[in-house]
């Protein structure tokens, strides 16, 4: 017998004789926060992320331009901001190891946890979101769901080969509980609220 058949046969021989029906999972959305945006912002800050408030001038992209002003290499996958490294021409993920800032757009965000979902469609090269020193994520305020139960109803989990919740930057506290940002991946994660450009839907 193959290992597969052996294992399945052993499971069948050992299955507990117990009736355990699959429960219904509620959406737990009876008491949503007054503002999904401000709930998202609070959660993001708790997790070490930064929310880029739109400046009074009305120039929404100004905080991003300020962040990348001194950066040598910027890799942008969004039309709103131009970079100087085109992700489409990247042959191997490791060619992105020198990127200072990556700029991408999130599929959606979760207010409960402050997470943004980045899929392979958003990233083009998945590695860019981990190899860059810093990550800037554009988020359409209309794309925030209240909690993870709602999040898992989104199509990305059925359509995409890769989809990752980023909740703040790479972090560790493996030494004496001292919190470090930038353990292996990005040292910072910033989220800029900005509506999707018209005519540029992801779905």
């Amino acid at each position, binding site marked *: 017998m193959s*290992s*597969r058949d052996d*294992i*399945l046969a*052993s499971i*069948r*021989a*050992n*299955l*507990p004789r*117990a009736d*355990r029906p699959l*429960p219904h*999972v*509620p959406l737990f959305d009876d*008491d949503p926060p007054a503002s999904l945006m401000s709930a998202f912002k609070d959660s993001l800050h708790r*997790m*070490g992320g930064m929310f880029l408030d739109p400046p009074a001038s009305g120039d929404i992209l100004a905080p991003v331009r300020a962040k990348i002003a001194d950066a040598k290499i910027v890799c942008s996958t969004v039309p709103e901001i131009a970079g100087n490294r085109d992700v489409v021409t990247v042959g191997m*993920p*490791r060619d992105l*190891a020198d990127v200072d800032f990556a700029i991408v757009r999130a599929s959606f965000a979760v207010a409960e*946890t*402050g*997470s943004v979902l980045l899929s*392979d469609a958003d990233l083009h090269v998945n*590695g860019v*979101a*981990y*190899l860059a020193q810093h990550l800037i994520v554009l988020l359409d305020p209309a794309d925030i769901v209240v*909690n*993870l*139960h709602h999040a*898992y*109803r989104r199509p990305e*989990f*059925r359509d*995409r*080969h*890769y*989809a*990752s*919740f*980023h*909740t*703040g*930057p*790479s*972090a*560790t*506290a*493996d*030494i*004496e*509980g*001292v*919190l*470090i940002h930038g*353990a*292996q*991946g990005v040292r910072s994660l910033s989220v800029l609220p900005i509506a999707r450009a018209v005519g540029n839907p992801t779905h």
Partner: protein
Amino acid sequence: MTMTPERTDSAMLHSELRVECDPDAIIRDGHRLDHAEGTSKPLRPAPEPQPRGAKVRGNRPIDQQEAAARFIAATEHEKMHDERLWDLRQKRDREMHGIPEWEELRSLASAIKEHTLTHLDEYLDQFEANARSNGIHVHWARDAAEHNKIVHGILRDHRATSLIKSKSMLTEECGFRHYMASVGIEVIETDLGERIQQLDNEDPSHVVVPAVHKLRTDVAEVFSHTIGTDPGNTDVHYLAEAQREATRPLILNADAGMTGANFVVAETGTFVVCTNEGNADLSANVPKLHIASIGIEKIVPRLEHLAVFVRLLSRSALGSPMTQYTSHFRGPRTGGEMHVVLVDNGRSERLGLEEFWTSLKCIRCGACMNTCPVYRRSGGLSYGATYSGPIGLIIDPTFNARKYSNLPFASSLNGSCTNVCPVKINIHEQIYAWRRVLVKQHEVPLAKKAAMKAAGVLLSRPAAYRAAIASADTALAHLPRFVIYNGLNAWGKHREVPHSPEQTFHSWYHANRGAKR
């Protein structure tokens, strides 16, 4: 760097570890950040040589008490370990109170796992079909040896000689690094804690925070010998940054990447990996080849069920609302190749153990370890096994009943583990049940047997138990010390027995509430 004096409201076990100003703290919006495994309060133990773990001698029973005694004797290590894990437990409680449906989530998680385990063959079949149709190669391994051989075969087919990997308890269970070293493949752990342990040639001591038993001075020493840091510099930011810089080229040049999985979704053929460092995503997304080793019990039926577990995992483990990265792999990326190895290694047999099969519900969060008074004071390495703490006590004997025969006795049966378990495993009852099984199998020495027999008689007769507890409490108050702290009572050796209550709960209930019924 911030020098803000901090106030914390939660009580400390060892207040002497407190420092007034913490240059390490990251302050946002006026609050100390304590997400991931970060402490909620600044702690500074004094330097001290690191105590080592249990002495493992082949198949001979592990002497957990002996190793625990050495850990306890290293007072700075013991205090720090105790305090840090208790802090994680307190953070977990804080998160629990923030979610009104917490108890409902625990019940759902337990019910979903029990349903899935009682239909495990069907869901594995479904996962395999869906993963294959998404382009994932699916392999099956009966045991650790077969797992290692399969992974080796995949690497050989790709002429891969270096492998970057994220933390996986399953690969620890399989002795994977040891095997790979024997066939000339370089394995590089990319989780900071696991990397520290790999460089120190020591097993992980905790399922979530593998180097939690080490002080910063211990890490500085390991790194100075291995990655060339300044032996006099024990700054944690310096040590973490040095490791990042040393590991990055190894990540960029590795031939293959490996991860474990926290969850598997049958309906979509997805596996899910949770990390705080993003190291699993680097391992999976930088090399062309990604291999995932997955225990067969990790499966859930549908995405709606996954939501329940993702909400519970990091909150239970670290008191953080979410891991920094929760990544869903449904198929290889363009130009890449993805393999999944489904591993049994004793799990299907465990499913047939009437008293113990629900231990397969475990999601490896470590909450039971963080709350356990024995684990917190003795350190994970004292157990001399892949799994330590309360969950280890009920899993390890299924691998080797003789070698781990002492472990189910490393518990006060206080039940705290059961209370915090996000999937409601009756851990302390299974610990007690294992004692009975091991006594029956003659794996337990005489002194323990005599005490067990007496306890067994009492516990099976509620009236006698209540009478005994009442008189035991009276006796504890009056007996001379040598009766309580004698050689037969192992857990009296290193600690004071708590003051006994003036009244038992049962008699209090009878006097105060009984009449209302």
